[in-house]
């Protein structure tokens, strides 16, 4: 079940390292030898099928039924009714919109800042390891702990952030009740937790760019910004695509931050920062409609597929125009 935010790191590597051919077995392998590989992958696949793959597919089946939390083993056929109910619910559309805006608010600044930090971390620096570890510190906290702390910092009456705002003569902001302010608040938590992590991913990518490229760019008279623009960014392209995909998926399923920001599954008094993930939870575990929650899960799944395809298409297009 791992994390709700993308679990640790890498999925699709860019270029696969070539798999060295396994040594050709001398003579005819014994029967047990031929079956052995399956024994090695079996523990993974048995559990994976039971707790990973099966629930995923079964969600689709559940989404076509009325299933209530209290009587979770009774299923009544509904057809597409869960889906049509969903599309009639203004809060579903609100959650969809919020997921999008919070996703943009958290992903875009996060990745831009990560890129900048990675660039700095790639310099020859004193205390390089210290800075790298410090960047990753927020990654060590949980969604729950981080959100509780930020909710306190963003408090309307006694929060530190409003205290700072008013002490420099600005108006305090209601970080919980106002739509944009609350969405900024939630996005800040996400950004704080993941910026350093993404910076390290970018740094790893930057270190794989050959130094000669920078040298020849410098000989051609490129300044630091031009080197960054024309050597670093193109070299990082696969890494950037990867982080965009992972962050997008993470944003689509955002859940813990909006749940704990104020402590209700409604996502604010007028649902102003309720995400799809939180809406799913509210349907299932506050209103007890597991079938409808399953429909939300499938909508999220389709959304992710569409976003992934979109990302892939954009990446492919950019590659083509580059050549």
């Amino acid at each position, binding site marked *: 079940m791992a994390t709700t935010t993308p679990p640790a790191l890498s999925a699709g*590597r860019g270029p696969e390292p070539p798999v060295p051919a396994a040594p050709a077995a001398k003579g005819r392998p014994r029967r047990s030898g031929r079956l052995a590989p399956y024994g090695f992958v079996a523990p993974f696949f048995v559990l994976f099928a039971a707790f990973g793959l099966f629930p995923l597919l079964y969600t689709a089946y559940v989404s076509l039924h009325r299933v209530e939390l209290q009587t979770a083993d009774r299923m009544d056929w509904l057809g597409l009714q869960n889906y049509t109910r969903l599309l009639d619910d203004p809060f579903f559309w609100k959650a969809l919109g919020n997921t999008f805006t919070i996703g943009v608010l958290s992903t875009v600044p996060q990745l831009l800042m990560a890129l900048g930090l990675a660039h700095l971390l790639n310099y020859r620096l004193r205390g390089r390891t210290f800075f790298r570890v410090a960047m990753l510190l927020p990654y060590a906290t949980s969604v729950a702990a981080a959100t509780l702390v930020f909710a306190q910092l963003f408090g309307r009456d006694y929060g530190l952030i409003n205290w700072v705002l008013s002490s420099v003569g600005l108006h305090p902001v209601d970080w919980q009740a106002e739509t944009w302010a609350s969405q900024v608040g939630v996005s800040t938590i996400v950004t704080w937790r993941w910026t350093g992590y993404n910076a390290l991913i970018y740094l790893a990518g930057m270190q794989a760019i050959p130094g000669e490229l920078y040298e020849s760019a410098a000989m051609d008279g490129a300044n630091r910004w031009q080197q960054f623009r024309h050597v670093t960014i193109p070299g990082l392209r696969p890494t950037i695509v990867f982080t965009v995909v992972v962050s997008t998926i993470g944003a689509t399923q955002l859940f813990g931050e909006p749940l704990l920001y104020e402590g209700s599954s409604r996502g604010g008094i007028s649902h102003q920062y309720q995400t799809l993930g939180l809406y799913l939870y509210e349907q299932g575990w506050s209103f007890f409609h597991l079938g409808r929650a399953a429909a939300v899960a499938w909508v999220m799944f389709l959304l992710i597929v569409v976003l992934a395809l979109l990302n892939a298409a954009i990446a492919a297009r950019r590659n083509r125009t580059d050549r």
Partner: protein
Amino acid sequence: MQLTRRSPLTGGPLAYTVLIAATVVFAFPFYWTLVAASRSNSELSAATPALTPGPNLFHNLGEAVQQAAIGTALLNSLIVSAAVTAGVVLSSTLAGFAFAKLRFRGRGVLLALTVGTMMIPPQLGVIPLFMVIVKLDLQNKLPSVILPSLVSAFGVFFMRQFLVQALPDELIEAGRVDGASTLRIFLSIVLPVARPGMAVLGMLTFMATWNDFFWPIVALSSQNPTVQVALKSLGQGYVPDQSVVMAGALLGTLPVLLVFGLLGRQIVGGIMQGAVKG
């Protein structure tokens, strides 16, 4: 890994300024947790908030432990994280080795399946999973959180990548010539070579499991919580005492921070190792 390759440019004062500022921003919430956890609720709601730690830390920690069963929660989190880490590391090393070095029919398809499903968020399977644990009468029991996490597609992929590079084919070949079975080869040749990769995967898995939130709050109640579930109930009191909430947050974060303090360098290395390189 090329952590030590010489960088093209030396950082100037501006680089240091920005990095130090970023470090302050990244570290401040931790400092603030300590400040808030060591003050009283009334001090936190004063017109001018206190910016330094106060004397109430132990009182607040005690309150948090009492209000949210944090003692049980810490023990539960430790059990769950240790069990999951052991399961993930073992199953991933076994499967990773097979994918990296053994030939068998269906290898490509199975690996593609593993990698492909890595991108699918676990939330999507949560409803049937919940129905299954209700059926097995595991609700509110630790196995409900341990069982679904015992394997990880990411772990398999990570160990495969590690072993493709770290395990020379000649070593396996030599084992075969000596007449060793595949299991023997795994135990005496693969495991020792795989150890650094297993350690990194273990740390990442432990942290992720400790911090996992969505599934535990669905599967467990506040009577038998993990730390994250306990934190949720602490934050949801009618009028939560902020300093006690912060004390709870501190307790929930401290163990991982300790691990991080000791092994931060290796964790950074592990994450950069798993990253995509252009």
